[in-house]
């Protein structure tokens, strides 16, 4: 179970790095956070799971999306 989730986490992280569309990258990052939170929960660390879900999937996504809105959406490099 945990191995399968970890594999998806790695895949989503690689996609977040390589994505040309930055919004897609941010969504992949928040998927990573949600899955990490479920791993923490499965490892019986609910305190860390709540933090990861609230900060990683919630707040940092909002801040990233705001930054993309105010700059530009595609990676030019």
């Amino acid at each position, binding site marked *: 179970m945990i191995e399968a989730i970890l594999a998806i986490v790695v895949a989503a992280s690689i996609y977040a790095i390589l994505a040309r569309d930055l919004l897609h990258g941010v969504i992949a990052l928040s998927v990573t956070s949600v899955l990490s939170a479920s791993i923490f929960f499965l490892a019986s660390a609910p*305190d860390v*799971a*709540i933090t990861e879900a*609230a900060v990683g999937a919630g707040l940092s996504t909002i801040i990233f999306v705001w930054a993309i809105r*105010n700059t530009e959406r595609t990676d030019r490099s």
Partner: protein
Amino acid sequence: MRRGKLLSAATGLAAASLALAVLAPVVMSDVDWPTAARDTIAADGYAATGATNLVSAIYLGYRAFDTLGETIVLLVALAGSVALVASTPGRPDLDRDGGPADSRGPGHTDIINVIAGKLAPIVLLFGTYVMLYGHTSPGGGFQGGVVLASGVIFIAIGRRAGGIGRISPSITAFGPRTLSVIEAIAFATVLALSFPGSGAALAGLIEATGASAGVAAKGVAAVGPIIALNIGIGLKVGSGVALLCVMMLGGDQE
């Protein structure tokens, strides 16, 4: 272009091997994990702090000064971000309380309506629960504060799009000014509680009040300082993060 890619690949490889060099000895060594601190806290944590959630017992009981330092780090980070956002042209200033008018904005959809009008109060309630019951159930000030901030952000998003639903306008008055006042008061509370002896004084006060009221507040007195710290940290984190996000959202409407 090619050189840049090569350079970033080399940097990534160097970082990965550095991380491996640090982590591999930890994972591969056959020395036993240190257990002295773990066993002590597992045995005495409840008696020493009164918190059944041992994570709270550690970070607000045994290591409360670490938590104070963390709170200050967060305060500095938030102050820097808020200063950056506020100095960007076209941003609202701190004195303006409240967002744009309640007309239906271009971003108004049913989804926004549901999130802002119906989900936000539930999220605020859940955040309050996580904040208040950190000593017995998973959670605490930091987690509850961030959940509270999400609720305030939902309301701010709804107000931007003009979809507050049936929430009364007084509840949606989470303007930057109100939030910064709440943050200042909460941080002052946390600072006051960190003075030597103030935790014991608070516990004694709760015990005396309970005794005079004829209520045997069993266990509450001992855990009182942890609950108070949770509330202070929760309000401080919640209002600080919400302040940052509300200011960022408020600067967008042209």
